[in-house]
């Protein structure tokens, strides 16, 4: 990915070098009073690996990285940050795609990698209690001997951690049927910026007072630091089958999705890929996709044998009547896994076509798909940047992948602008700028397009109820009104001269 560096919002202007060194030393000595030396990182060369998350276009070197391994240590870290009025950013595996865990150069990076223990798997109560640094997939693996699993499965599930999943309210390919992270978490333990340990939710199905469990989900580390998560485990479905249908017109594939749902069927997964994405993925994963098709749909049905048998016939009929040029049912579990492997490797596969790719994450009302694809393809021509599309079709979540070369001067800027236009198009058709990757630093300007000033002011008031000094992940997720005013002014400029930079490339 690109190395380009961007002008980013931070709570304060970056400090001078002398100030930074002084503050770094004073913070480190405060942390070293209760953390072992290997858990306090402040040598510049050792800080480098922490300068970015999964959105590597955005980089900052933090003042100090701390790696506590007990809740009490997290409480003390936060109390010190509060006392010294130093911003603090929490980080799990650093796989996030919106820069939510990008450090601040005047702040502390609180790494939760050492919180990697599964505390309890209870097959009777069907819950898993885990530390936030446990990987998503590790929960399902640990539950598997009991015939249970944890449903949300973001594509990065092999690496991403449950704490980050909660912070971003992550989805995955199965969320139309099984819900997002918010639907699958029962209890959270969170440390506030005051160093206080709070519990939200519980093992029962609701809690007294406000639904703070829901508020925490997707709050991007702005309200507190998650130190323990209890999730719901589901029984593994008796059977799962996967159908793949090919189409020579992407609009027909869209119609098939509507037809399946109109038939009263909620597939466990319903994914669409366009021609370019199919081609790249097949080259990369050799999974048996029909190269040359305008679109494919992958439709997974799960449940009891009887349920799946009945639905499979109806889905096939819908695919055929919507104009599918072929419908193929995975012959066995190995083929089902292979077909999914293609979809799950779509990002890196597409990335082989160009030195860099930039993944977008808008959601649209599904019926607007043909129009959105058409306009994206026009923009693609305007910016001279190819786009491959993978799409959580069941729930309208688009992942356009813009292909570019960061070594070409100005190309990242152009890519970023193209991405911004795609997100603004999603808002225009009644959708949202982010379905599951979060706002982070990446989409902070588009928040100004999605929300009105009074709504942003209400978000700031919510944050202030938890973090009055604005020390937790400042500058992320919710833009200041001033920033939006500036972005609005820039937009007027764009309207005058749509692509002012183009002649430079």
């Amino acid at each position, binding site marked *: 990915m690109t190395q380009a560096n961007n002008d980013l919002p931070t709570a304060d202007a970056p400090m001078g070098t002398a100030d930074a060194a002084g503050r770094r030393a004073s913070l480190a000595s405060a942390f070293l009073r209760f953390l072992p030396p290997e858990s306090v990182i402040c040598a510049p060369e050792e800080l480098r690996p922490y300068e970015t998350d999964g959105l590597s276009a955005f980089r900052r070197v933090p003042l100090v990285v701390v790696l506590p391994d007990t809740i009490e240590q997290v409480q003390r870290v936060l109390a010190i940050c509060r006392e010294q009025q130093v911003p603090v950013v929490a980080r799990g595996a650093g796989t996030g795609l919106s820069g939510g865990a990008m450090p601040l150069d005047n702040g502390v990076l609180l790494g939760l990698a050492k919180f990697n223990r599964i505390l309890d798997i209870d097959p009777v109560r069907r819950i898993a209690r885990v530390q936030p640094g446990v990987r998503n997939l590790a929960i399902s693996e640990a539950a598997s001997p009991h015939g249970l699993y944890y449903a949300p499965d973001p594509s990065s599930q092999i690496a991403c951690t449950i704490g980050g999943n909660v912070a971003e309210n992550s989805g995955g390919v199965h969320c139309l049927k099984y*819900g997002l992270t918010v639907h699958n978490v029962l209890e959270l333990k969170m440390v*506030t910026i005051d160093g206080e340990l709070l519990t939200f939710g519980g093992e029962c*199905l609701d809690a007294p007072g406000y639904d703070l469990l*829901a508020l925490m989900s997707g709050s991007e580390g702005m309200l507190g630091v998650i130190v323990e998560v209890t999730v719901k485990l589901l029984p593994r479905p008796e059977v799962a089958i996967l159908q793949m249908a090919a189409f020579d017109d992407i609009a027909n594939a869209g119609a098939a999705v509507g037809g399946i749902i109109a038939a009263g069927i909620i597939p466990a997964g319903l994914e669409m890929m366009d021609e370019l994405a199919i081609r790249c993925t097949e080259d990369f994963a050799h999974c048996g996709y029909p190269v040359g098709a305008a679109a494919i749909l992958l439709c997974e049905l799960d449940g009891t044998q009887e349920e799946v048998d*009945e*639905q499979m016939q109806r889905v096939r009929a819908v695919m055929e009547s919507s104009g599918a040029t072929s419908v193929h049912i995975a012959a066995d579990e190995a083929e089902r896994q292979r077909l999914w492997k293609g979809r799950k490797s779509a990002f890196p596969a597409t990335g082989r076509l160009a030195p860099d790719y930039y993944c977008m994450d808008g959601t649209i*009302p599904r019926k607007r798909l043909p129009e959105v694809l058409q306009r994206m393809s026009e923009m693609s021509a305007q910016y001279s940047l190819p786009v491959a599309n993978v799409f959580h079709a069941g729930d309208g979540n688009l992942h356009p992948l813009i292909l570019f070369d960061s070594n070409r001067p100005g190309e990242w800027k152009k890519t970023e602008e193209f991405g911004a236009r795609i997100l603004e198009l999603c808002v225009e058709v009644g959708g949202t700028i982010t379905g599951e990757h979060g706002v982070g630093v990446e989409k902070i300007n588009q928040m100004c397009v999605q929300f009105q000033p009074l709504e942003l002011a209400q978000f700031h008031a919510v944050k202030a109820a938890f973090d009055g000094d604005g020390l937790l992940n400042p500058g992320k997720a919710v833009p200041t009104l001033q920033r939006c005013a500036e972005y609005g002014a820039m937009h007027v400029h764009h309207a005058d001269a749509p692509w002012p930079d183009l002649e430079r490339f």
Partner: protein
Amino acid sequence: MELRDISADLAQVVEQASAERQPLVVVGGGTKGFYGRRVDGTALSVSGHRGITNYEATELVLSARAGTPLVEIESALAEHGQMLPFEPPRFGPTATLGGALACGLSGPARPYRGAARDFVLGTRVLNGRGESLRFGGEVMKNVAGYDVSRLMVGALGTLGIVLEASLKVLPRPAAEITLVRDEDPDAALTTMNALGGKPYPLTASAYDGERLYLRFSGARAAVDAAAARVGGERLSDADDWWRSVRDHTHPFFTGDAPLWRLSLPATAPLAEREGIGFVEWGGAQRWLRGERAAEAMWHQAQTVGGHATLYRGGDRTAGVFQPLPEAMAAIHRRLKRAFDPHGICNAHRLYAEW
């Protein structure tokens, strides 16, 4: 069906009440006035703000104004073979969408399909200053901004007034069967929890102290197969029976004796000393009748990791919800102020202090 948008009038009333520090009591269909603490203030009716504003069956999304009666929404959904998956209780024919969300109540399918908050995609709300704000949207996945829409669910109107909401809806199952079996209390609880861990299409469970009721929903063949494997007598008027549980017209719930609701971990042992009462949600929701000391109920629920609510009847001037630990209470106070700085929206309905 009547379609009316009175949001501008409502905003003006709230803005003025805010300026005059005049507390408002939000009223929809007037069917859940019994729930929460008794409060005083000027009644503000939102029932005139009604109508379904958007329904896309193939997008699985319905949006409606808060005053829209649930019956109207459910009949529109039924025309397309769809439903509100959380089965909101209807304590009268006038119950509205706004009331269902403000109270955050869910019916028998709750443990299997999800709660009211799980299906809320977006809202338009009036905060305590009378500002009209939109959060979330009409799409399934949306993580832009804090999830204020879900926060509104169950807040009893204390953070503002829901004007309009967008919900995820689901297809109605093709077939449904309810099985009834005689079980003793411990066996009933064990069965409910064991079935919850198996891939059966279970969508409701209840125990009345003698009989265990299990509902299975899905494709015809799937439901028949599950029924054959699980075993039990088929209940003939099952829809009516589950409705009576949902809407509290079942004999257990009628009469004037105070009704307590216990929300507990599903496997928490049944406390024989208190009587079995009525058990739902695979063991996670339990009902008891009669005068009981609130402190003792809260203590008992907390001991097993749950909470208790004086749901209906009894002394409604005291606390009816489980008291919050101080650190949580402080966050609640600050959130209340963030949305309703002058404390005019359903003040004291949730907790006495604010």
